[in-house]
Every structure is written in structure tokens, then in C-alpha cells.
């Protein structure tokens, strides 16, 4: 990489910009520009009248943000989003790691087969499986309640009870997403040299001890990476509540993105919606930086 090579290596050639131009123009106009515009939008009172004529927009500076803070529904959405990310995220990681350890175990045969099966939920279309799960969660005819009734657990109104709706969405999300993280964990596990385990066995370390002293520390960079991408994804919760609960019951599953969608694209309060989007951005940015810092400290 470092050594300059060939004619194209000299910086006067226009070739690289020719190759970059389409991508940079598209990403610039249709991503970075809108992101910057969103910041401006969040400082205006852009609403349904402005959709018709932009002239009806005024700068209101931070009024959207102050309204946000005094809007109980915003706090509900914020709380729901954190609930989903902070409970669903770790559960997904645990399920993924468990599956990866099982599939990657020395004694397991048909590794490829199990890996494929576990991965299938991830490739499916979220909207379609959300509809399927809506029926699995049916209080009367759903398979889940039927299975629970075998153990004497009374019918739970999964999606109709504000207490259970979010756990139900989390359960589905764990099922849907664990296979993806599992693959990354398997790749990480395979990088751990086998000799480490061998010498640990010679020293008489049991399976649990090996897991704690070898697997976990060796896997920690992978763990942080997976935690970051899972969390970023989970903070953007939208389709599950949109399809399964419409944000209900009693707003128990209204996420920040769902609230942004409703405010922006149903009521056309786009200035206000943009402020929600920016708060979400700040949360994701903060959480990402925190986890990366954590990783750095561990590496020292």
C-alpha cells in the first residue's frame, strides 16, 4: 500500500475522482446533505403548511427541543427505546454467543447445517415475520400461549397488555437477529488458537474456567463490535411495533423512530420530527463512543 506504484500512483491523475464521483455525489446529495438539512429543519416550525409552501416556515431555534422535553409522549418513546435496546441487546448477545459456542463446540458435527438453520430467521423479511409472530402471540389461538398452558401458565395477552407488549417484541427480535451475531462470534472463536485450550486442559481447567479465562477475554474485541452494531440497530426500532402493535397498547411500544415517523409523515410536523431524529442520533453517537472507549480501556 505505501510504496507508490505505477503511473496512476501520481496524484495529478484525474482517474480516482472519476471513479469516486458517482458514489460521492450520490452519498453527498442523498445522505450527508439531508443529514445537515435535518439539523436546520429541527430549528424551524416546518409543518403541513410549509409542505405546501416553504415560505410558511420560520426559524424557532430551540423551541422544538424545549417542546420535546415537555412532551410526555417523547419521554415514553425514549424510555421504550432504551427498554428495547438495553434489555433486547444483551439478550440477543447472550443468545448469539450461546449459539456460537454450541455450533463451534469441538464435538459438534454438521456445523454448517446448524449454522444455516440458526441464520435463517435473520434473512427473512421483518414485516412478514412480524405478522407471523402477531398470530403466534394470539392470546386464544396462538402457539405460544398453548405451549405455556402445558406448564400451567395462564393465557397472556402478549400484544394487548402494556406490560407484556415490549417483552413480546424483544423476544421476537432476539429470535430474528441472534443468527447474525452468531456468525460473527463463530468467526471470532475460530481465531482463538487451539493451543490455549489444550494447555488449559493440561492444567486441569474445566469448561467454565476455560470460557472465563480464555474465550471471553480473547473474544472481547468481537464482543464490543457486535454490541455496538446490535445496539445501533436496536435504537432504530420501527417495523416491529408498526406492524405488531401500532405503538400500543397505551403507547407501551412507541419507539423514537415510530414517533418520528408519526410526527413527520403522518402529521407533517417535520421540524418537530427532525428534533426527535437528532436526539436519536446523539444517543446512538454517545452510546457508540462509550462502548468504543470501554474497548480501548480493556485493551490497555
Amino acid at each position, binding site marked *: 500500500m505505501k510504496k507508490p*506504484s*505505477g503511473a*496512476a*500512483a501520481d*496524484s495529478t*491523475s484525474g482517474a*480516482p475522482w472519476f*471513479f*469516486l464521483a458517482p*458514489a*460521492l455525489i*450520490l*452519498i453527498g446529495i*442523498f*445522505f450527508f446533505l*439531508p*443529514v445537515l438539512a*435535518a439539523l436546520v*429543519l429541527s430549528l424551524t416550525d416546518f409543518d403541513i403548511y410549509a*409542505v405546501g409552501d416553504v415560505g410558511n416556515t420560520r426559524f424557532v431555534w430551540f423551541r422544538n427541543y424545549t417542546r420535546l422535553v415537555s412532551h410526555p409522549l417523547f419521554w415514553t418513546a425514549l424510555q421504550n427505546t432504551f427498554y428495547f435496546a438495553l434489555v433486547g441487546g444483551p439478550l440477543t448477545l447472550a443468545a448469539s454467543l450461546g*449459539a456460537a459456542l*454450541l455450533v463451534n463446540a469441538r464435538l*459438534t458435527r454438521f456445523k454448517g447445517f*446448524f449454522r444455516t*438453520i*440458526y*441464520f*435463517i*430467521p435473520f*434473512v*427473512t*423479511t421483518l*414485516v*412478514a*415475520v412480524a*405478522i*407471523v409472530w402477531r*398470530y403466534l402471540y*394470539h392470546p*386464544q*389461538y396462538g*402457539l405460544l400461549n*398453548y405451549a405455556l398452558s402445558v406448564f400451567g401458565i395462564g393465557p397472556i395477552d402478549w400484544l394487548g397488555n402494556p406490560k407484556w407488549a415490549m417483552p413480546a417484541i424483544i423476544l421476537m427480535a432476539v*429470535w430474528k437477529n441472534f*443468527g447474525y451475531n452468531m*456468525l*460473527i462470534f463463530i*468467526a471470532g472463536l475460530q481465531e482463538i488458537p487451539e493451543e490455549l485450550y489444550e494447555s488449559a486442559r493440561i492444567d486441569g481447567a474445566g469448561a467454565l474456567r476455560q470460557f472465563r479465562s480464555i474465550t471471553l477475554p480473547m473474544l472481547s474485541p*468481537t464482543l464490543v*463490535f457486535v454490541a455496538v452494531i446490535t445496539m*445501533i440497530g436496536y*435504537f*432504530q426500532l420501527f*417495523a416491529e411495533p*408498526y406492524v405488531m402493535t401500532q405503538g400500543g397498547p397505551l403507547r407501551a411500544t412507541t419507539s423514537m423512530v415510530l414517533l418520528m415517523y408519526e410526527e413527520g*409523515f403522518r402529521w407533517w410536523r*417535520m421540524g418537530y420530527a427532525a428534533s426527535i*431524529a437528532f436526539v436519536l442520533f446523539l444517543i446512538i*453517537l454517545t452510546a*457508540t463512543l462509550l462502548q468504543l472507549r470501554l474497548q480501548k480501556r480493556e485493551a490497555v
Partner: protein
Amino acid sequence: MLYATLVIGALLALLPMVWMVSASLMPQGEASSYPPRIFPRAVTFEHYAALFTRLELGRFFINSSIVAVTVTFTSLFINSMAGYAFAKFHFRGRDRVFRLLSTGLVIPVQVAMLPLFLLLKELGLINTYWGVIIPGMASIFGIFLIRQYVMSLPDDMLDAARIDGAGEFRIYWSIVLPVIRPILATLAIWTFLSTWNDFMWPLIVLSEESRYTLPVALANLSGEHVQDTELMMAGSVLTILPVLIVFLFLQRSYVQGITVGSVKG
């Protein structure tokens, strides 16, 4: 013990899918009976027939295909050019542009959606396929994936072609593209699956039912036909089937992409 856990896990992973297929073949009302049935008493294809005749699911199928195929091919071309440029050229500002692009990875796409909608409205692209396609035509992730792969290629190959007097586009088109075919396959599958499954942006851009992609149409139908469990399951099967087929046939390339993409972390 090990196998018992593995098999139970596999059953749990597959159960919702199995039930979906099974319920889609049940006569009207059978999926809402107690105790719930896992397999149909008698197999019927009436719901599939109804989807294509009464509900015109074929229309949405075509819409989804147009969008997913166009995004896949255009983005493959555009991302591979950019990834190649980042990997094999030394030019002023390269690192700065690259760093700027990386910051884009932590910005949630939803932040861009509100202004993007207004922009596309100005361009007259709301409720068109292009409105869905254009924002997907270049992706930062795709550029990174290609760059990572091209960096591992030896420079000599490209220099030899240059000495032979080949033009830069010729080199990209007839030397680089053929060698990076594995990563192109990975990116193609990734892009196809994620575009096919995408929901929020098509939901926002497409306002007229005749333009809906399958997930948007399905979400819409599921509101009107809550009681028609079997019909909705048939619709879900048809939505998932194409991605499942693509995945099962091409999973090697797909899986490779996930692990390559994660190594940089």
C-alpha cells in the same frame, strides 16, 4: 446433551417459519382453532390463488423485483468503482474523504429521511420507483467492503496493464472487476436481500398502492385482513420465499461478507 440443545434450538428457530407455511395451507378459519393445529387437516392452495387474483400480489412482487434488482446492479457498479479508487490510488484528500465517509456509518439513516423526502418531492420522485432506488444506489458499507478486498490485490497486475497502455476504465472493467468477483457476489446478495426486506423508506416514499413493494403491501393488507390468518400467512410465505431461496443457494458468499465486514472492527 449438546445435540439435544442444538436440535431444540434449531426447532425453535424454524418453528415460526414452519407454522407460517403450514397455516398458509389451511382452510379458512383452521389456524384460529383451539387447540392450535401445527399441520393442516387438509391442504388447500386457495389463499395463494386469492392473493394473486383478488389482491393482485403479482403487482407488488414485480415492484419489489424492479426496485431490488435495479438497486443491486447500480450499487454494485458505483460502489466497486469507489472502493477500487480508495484502495488503489494515491491522491490528495483521499484519507480526508475516507474519514468523512466513515463518520456516516454512525449516523442513523432516519436522520436523513425527513429532508430527503422533501428533496425527492422537489425532484418529483415521490411515489416513483426512483424515489426508492436512488438513495440506495451508493452505500458507505459497500464501498468499505470492496475497498478492503481490493487492497489485498497485488499492484503489479494493474501496473502491467498500464504499461501496456490500457486506459484506466479498461483496467477497472476488464482486470479489476473479474478478480473481485467473489466480493461482488457477496455485496450483490447483501444488497438484494436488504433492499427486498426494506420497509420504512418505501413506506414513506410510495403513497399509491399500485407502487407498493411487498413488505409495504403486506403491512397494509395485514391491517385490513387481521382475521384472515391463513391468507396473511400465504402472503408472508410469498414475501419471504425469494430471499430464502437466494440465501440458501448463495449462502457461502453471503456469510463470507458478514465475517469480512466485521473483521475491521
